[in-house]
């Protein structure tokens, strides 16, 4: 067993359902995290975010008054966001395509569909650590690169510096 404890690693759990929040916290505790802050909506979460500057955020999508999409946008774009690059895992029961696309376009790093499994959550944390995504800034978007796969048949639009030029092989 790794037996590691992460005394300085801080996570923020944003979820309106107390049972789900407790469940997520127990998974992070099992992983060895000592500091997992909790918020029940995006507005409270951003206050904690400014105060604690977490290294990892787990957020639900549907919450009131501020949902996970608006919260993610705030983290990525607000002038007083302490870390606009923080990894955000969205954990949601929403399977509707338009919701998932809206969350992706707000700047979510990874998705995890409910029901939650330890393997599912840890796989995504591992992905964030092992294969960090590039960030993209363009008109109307700042967040992780949404082109997750290298598509050899991609036909545009070509909007990035590295879309052009010469590649050495």
């Amino acid at each position, binding site marked *: 067993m790794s037996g590691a404890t992460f005394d300085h690693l801080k996570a923020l759990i944003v979820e309106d359902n107390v049972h789900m929040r407790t469940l997520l916290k127990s*998974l992070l505790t099992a992983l060895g995290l000592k500091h997992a802050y909790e918020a029940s909506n995006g507005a409270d979460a951003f206050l904690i975010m400014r105060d604690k500057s977490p290294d990892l955020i787990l957020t639900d999508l549907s919450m009131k008054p501020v949902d996970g999409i608006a919260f993610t946008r705030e983290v990525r774009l607000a002038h007083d966001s302490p870390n606009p690059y923080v990894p955000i895992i969205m954990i949601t029961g929403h399977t509707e395509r338009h919701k998932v696309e809206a969350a992706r376009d707000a700047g979510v790093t990874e998705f995890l569909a409910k*029901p939650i499994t330890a393997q599912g959550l840890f796989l995504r944390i591992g992905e964030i650590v092992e294969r960090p995504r590039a960030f993209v800034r363009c008109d109307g978007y700042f967040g992780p690169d949404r082109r997750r796969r290298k598509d050899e048949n991609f036909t545009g639009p070509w909007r990035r510096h590295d879309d052009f030029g010469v590649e050495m092989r």
Partner: protein
Amino acid sequence: MTLKKPSPPHRRIRAVKIPPGGYPALPRKVALQLLEAVQDPEVIATAARAIADKAEEMRGAVLRHVESLEQAARAADQTRIFEQAHEIRGLAGNAGLIATGRIANNLCKYLDALGQAGRQPDQELVALHLEAIGRAAHAEDEATRLGDAVANELAHLVDKKLAEINDSARRA
């Protein structure tokens, strides 16, 4: 040396890419320890036990949401019906109520698509889902072939209804 992409004469670059390493991240030592921890079978087993330990609590929460769903149905409150069904689909899997979660997900999918299309739901189909959710959530062993069969039948009905909506939207 190969040309990567054609360069159109009128190209206008609007996006900037910041590669990993170009922005703040976890210190390398912590990142490696974390990676080791998430891949450790004992850590995964401990976390899986933590989930299993919460199943009964989750089941209680699902049953409370089923009550709220039934209240919302009696009040014909479509927004609350969706909200409660959404809560149920989110919690049911971790409560071991797989069929309940699937049926609640069908209902959400249906109500969401109808909302997107600006249409009113078929109340009989909604009522069928509500009854099935209630029965499945209260069943002693809902993970039976019957629960799966009901979930499959309802999914089929929802798909059929959504296909009709898509067809009429295409024709309009």
